[in-house]
């Protein structure tokens, strides 16, 4: 590949490299993946910072995301306006956070936002019900779902206000060393 790419300026690539967990080669690879989603929409020249967004439907059809029950939330959390349509920056950000090298705190922050369905910065019982339903494809009975949510709140809610704050969530994540390996998308 060398230095022959004309998509980004050298400074742009440097900036991307410093702000994400990817190397230059990986950033170029990710750019081509992004471009493949909508070849007629994405220009091959990003030196002028074009303001282009790939619609959510195309993002959600990526092989890494299409069978994930949380793909809509992931796209919403990382997109600029919360609607799921992603710019290249959002795209890189998303895969950078979901990569192997992102630290636990960063992943926990974004995982919290993903599981917070109503965007009120707390994971309340309704959010938990949504999460559990998607995790089990709706095959648990309502009583079981509410029992599970109750137990989760019992275990993780530190200040007993009936919902999980970011600190509660981070505290719980600390006790789960598997989190780093499961909250990981390989691209």
């Amino acid at each position, binding site marked *: 590949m060398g230095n022959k790419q004309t998509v980004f300026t050298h400074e742009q690539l440097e900036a991307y490299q410093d702000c994400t967990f990817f190397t230059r080669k990986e950033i170029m690879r990710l750019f081509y993946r992004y471009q493949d989603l909508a070849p007629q929409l994405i220009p091959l020249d990003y030196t002028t910072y074009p303001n282009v967004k790939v619609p959510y439907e195309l993002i959600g059809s990526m092989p890494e995301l299409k069978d994930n029950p949380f793909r809509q939330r992931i796209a919403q959390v990382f997109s600029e306006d919360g609607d799921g349509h992603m710019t290249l920056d959002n795209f890189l950000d998303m895969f950078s956070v979901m990569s192997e090298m992102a*630290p636990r705190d960063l992943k926990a922050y974004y995982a919290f936002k993903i599981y917070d369905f109503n965007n009120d*910065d707390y994971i309340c019982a309704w959010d938990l019900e949504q999460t559990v339903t998607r995790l089990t494809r709706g095959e648990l009975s309502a009583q079981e779902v509410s029992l599970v949510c109750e137990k989760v709140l019992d275990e993780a809610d530190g*200040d007993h*206000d009936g919902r999980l704050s970011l600190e509660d969530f981070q505290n*719980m994540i600390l006790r*789960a060393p598997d989190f780093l*390996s499961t909250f*990981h998308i390989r691209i």
Partner: protein
Amino acid sequence: MAFVLNVPETPDDWSQEPSPYDEDEVHHSFHQLIQEQSQWVGASGSEAGLQLTPGPAALLTVVDGDHQAGPGPEGAPAYSAATLRILASMPSRTIGRSRGAIISQYYNRTMQLRRCGRRPLLGAEGRGARPSLRSLDLELDPTAREEEEKRALLVTELQGLTGAQQDQLLRGMPLSLAEKRCLRQESRTPSGKQRGWQAQRGVWSCCSRLKYGCVLAFHNLGLGLLSGLSALTPWRYTLKRIGGQFGSSVLSYFLFLKTLLVSNALLLLPLLAFIVGVQAAFPPDPRGPAPTFTGLELLTGAGYFTHTVMYYGYYSNFTLNQPCTHPPDGAQCTPGAGDLPYNMPLAYLFTMGAIFFTTGITLVYSMSRSFGESYRVGSTLGIHAITVFCSWDYKVTQKWASRLQQDNLRTQLKELLAEWQLRQRPRSVCGRLRRAAVLLLVWFLCLATVLGCAVGVYTFSELMIQSPVATGQEVGLLVLPLVVSLANLLVPYLYRLLATLERHESPVLEVYVAVCRNLLLKAILLGILCYHWLGRRVGALKGQCWEDFVGQELYRFVVMDFIFTLLDTLFGELVWRLVSEKKSRSRRKPEFDIAGNLLQLIYGQTLTWLGVLFCPLLPAVQVLKLLLLFYVKKTSLMANCQAPRRPWLASHMSTVFLTLLCFPSFLGAAVFLCSAIWQVKPSSTCGPFQTLDTMYEAGKVWVRHLQRAGPRVSWLPWVYHYLLENTFLIFLVSALLLAVIYLNIQVVKGQRKVICLLKEQISNEGEDKMFLINKLHSVYEKKERSR
């Protein structure tokens, strides 16, 4: 908009609906509720009605201290709009969420980072992201102006760090990429950097700079090596496919296999460089006519391979490349230029010692690091929360794999609930007795099987000694490895059968019990074999080269292990799948048995470590075997298996298996090596230690030689006599180790207590908060009523 305790009289601020993502305004989650409340109040006639925004109900806990989550406006507590506006600007609503708060938080962190963690003066503490009650100035103000201030301060702080530190901090911030690029841009402007340097130099401390410099240098070196290695690794895409279809649990087996492959390859390097390569360059005189190569050598290791670099017996017991032998009249001989004498026995001993020492240190280090990452104080609590939030594997990419994961999670959650409900209802005494009886019976059967296998192997080995194999009938040599491998293959299936009788409550416990039994079997069999080799064979093969024989035995065991693993894959996975497809309509593929396969890898590695002393090329055989195994297992997995249904805590299990690799496996091999070096008399007809009483004597001979050499190297014999031969040092080191372990245990106990206290404190603070909210609400209510 500033929020102070005085409530504005008119709701003029609601005429313009703020955008949900405009963080300068009231937090948008409360926006809905405030509107609903305003409408409710308006409906009862005191205010103009506003439009109701539909949406999921925000949940607040009800008054009276009962913690109910009440969805819907009917159940929502009737807090007044004014109360809600104040609640919306609570510090806990803004931490970690709004940009301004993140920037504040990171500004504080950066500052602490650079000041070596010195606590900032209380008075000088600015308005942080979470103002405590100390700063009773309740004008909480998340406006754009403050965000700009904090941002400028953060940029200044960033300029004070080195480039690598900046990058590390920037990457870890939960801001959007565009924001990070702006911050990076601003902090990299040259004039800014100059200003930053001048201003902050006084505050830097040398030690923090050095520490961070070192840490980041290593980090960058590690990253560089990793990226280089990952470019080299040929299996990146394969591992991604395996992870995508089967999840992290099955992936952990393949990662373990890859690690063993790399470590064996690294083990091979010093062996090739210092022992095999040198001896191959100076081949000894042939002891007799070399046997012809028949295909059987690949299985038995004997025959053609006997007098090659492969085995101990080939290696010379004198100094190679010695320029001249001592002339009989005692005259001195001067070595020619370019002659490097190479003391083969010493090299053999030292290389073996060095590789075992390095392997041991590496294993202990990686085990301790893995342990530190995967075990936390209080990590066994909160299994429901962890199952809900941390078990969905985002790596899974196929529809059927995703559905399977969902099914597994459903089953897991159902089992957890059932387990909990069972614990609510304590079992009757009769039930408990019955359960204890079943457990005892199963354990008795398992131990009896192990004992039976042990006795069988022992008698068989004695039989092999009594009736030695004739030279033409070398196939007979394969019988002992065959018997042992057969036992290792079939007995675990028996254990699985017995395990269905005892129904454990927790699936993790089942895995641990199965691993324990399997391990016991393998350890006892290997123990008997080691005794057979070092105890009985040495005596039986007096006058012959027993080390060669032991080396060949271990080669045979390694090869047999490989063959039986292939057979297991064939019958356990392929045939099972075919049979189950024909017989049952459910098309349920066999599960990949992760624990069994991992233990098999550990067993193979133990054999390699046991045999390295007698067969220096055994790691090469192991490397080849692991390479073939990777492809065979991968193919079989993709074609025949499905992911395990039971939860497999990958992180814990990796630690457990790494510990098993270190403790029974490596320790056993090290004990075997030590007894071979220190206690057994080497054979007098072959090998580098022919003329000595023990292999260790080569070292002693060398020390004596050094003593005679002169005063300049006298410290080496001194070190040898007073540190290595003297047992006092070992006692001292052991005592220190025990003290360190004890202190660590006390520290962990103390930490556990502190965690309990902090949890209580959080709970109390939560109650305080609810109390204050309710009081606030009652104040406003009174105010409303009195108006």
